């Protein structure tokens, strides 16, 4: 979550002060991303230093000091909204590594390992779904933020399901311990 850009977005609606920014940030993200007030002030100081926001001259203490977005801040925000996040390089996925390792450790029931992770993920999804269910029906931010978590967890479960099925069908996993397993090659160009 880019806190600086979220604050720029809130300031693009008009001048606001620190405490107000924190409250609005949490409300807009469906309270899924809690933010401490110190984070808000340090971020505002950095934005001010970079010329993306400026003090609007209201408020004395740090909590009530008002800020407004600058023209450079508007440009930065517009560019950020359209910049795709880095999804191109595969992340170093701990779960994938665990499953690949499990395949090679003698005596490990890989399907059991997969199920432990599947159960954990489904439980997390149940918790998120309950949050969505209990949230107000018109709380769009909450529904969108929770959906994003649900789709992310769901995609991991789908991978586990497909891994399960692939491992079951693979001839190499049906032979006894000690037999050679297929060499796992790193895709060329992947950042690891």
């Amino acid at each position, binding site marked *: 979550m880019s806190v600086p850009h979220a604050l720029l977005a809130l300031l693009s609606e008009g001048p606001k002060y620190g405490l107000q920014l924190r409250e609005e940030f949490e409300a807009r993200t469906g309270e899924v991303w809690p933010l401490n007030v110190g984070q808000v002030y340090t971020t505002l100081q950095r934005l001010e230093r970079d010329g993306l926001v400026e003090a609007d001259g209201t408020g004395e203490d740090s909590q009530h000091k008002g800020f407004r977005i600058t023209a450079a801040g508007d440009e930065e925000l517009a560019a950020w909204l359209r910049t795709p996040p880095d999804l191109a390089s595969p992340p170093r996925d701990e779960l994938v590594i665990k499953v690949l390792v499990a395949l090679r450790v003698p005596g490990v029931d890989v399907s059991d390992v997969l199920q432990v992770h599947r159960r954990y993920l489904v439980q997390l999804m149940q918790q998120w779904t309950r949050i969505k269910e209990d949230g107000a029906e018109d709380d769009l931010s909450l529904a969108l933020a929770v959906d994003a978590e649900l789709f992310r967890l769901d995609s991991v479960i789908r991978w586990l399901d497909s891994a*399960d099925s692939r491992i079951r069908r693979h001839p190499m996993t049906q032979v006894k311990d000690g037999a050679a397993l297929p060499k796992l090659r790193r895709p060329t160009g992947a950042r690891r």
Partner: protein
Amino acid sequence: MTALELRHVSKTYGEGAAEVHALRDVSLTVEPGALVAIMGPSGSGKSTMLTIAGSLEDASSGDVLVAGQALATLSRNERARLRRRSIGFVFQNFNLLAGLTAAENVALPLELDGIPARVARKSAMKVLEELGLGDRAARFPDELSGGERQRVAIARAVVGERRLLLADEPSGALDSVNAEGVMRLVRATCQGGVAGVVVTHDAQLASWADRVVFLRDGRISDQTAPLPGPESLLTQGHSQ
């Protein structure tokens, strides 16, 4: 009284070399008001489990109790009556009768049970209105959207005094927002005291359940723990 109880249920198809064990020693209890999801890959036995729970098929061994009644002790007619009165089914492809309006589809199980048409139609309208379909009651299935058709199917499954709602991939081919609408309805129905069992391979649907049971090769291989409060998620530092 439990709404559904499976005790050591097994189901075998075929004989000898062609023998297939669809379910092996499955035990499951679903209390009124609870929603249980059954997850598992294709061929894991989840649909068989549902058809046996709904008395559409007999177990090879073990006992099935619906609303406290052991299915094995009931005659064919008594079982048919139990299905009509106490069990509601929702299928993937909705299974609405094309020649009947939404209201007639919903009223059908009551009418088959000997309830006068006028009374049955009144109950059907009440459920349709609760599901936000009051103004669609006179429409035929092909005049309804996919989401509306599935809501009609749910209305048909819960009309009258049902104790058990059995759903097999109830969101069918609906998009995720409509699928969520279906699960909200299923859950609201359960919160009204009906016991629900949803069979699915979709974790997003399953996550609406109070408990998720994992089926593998005809056996219950695992199930989820009771849910902790949602606060546990919101305090994990998601701002990182």
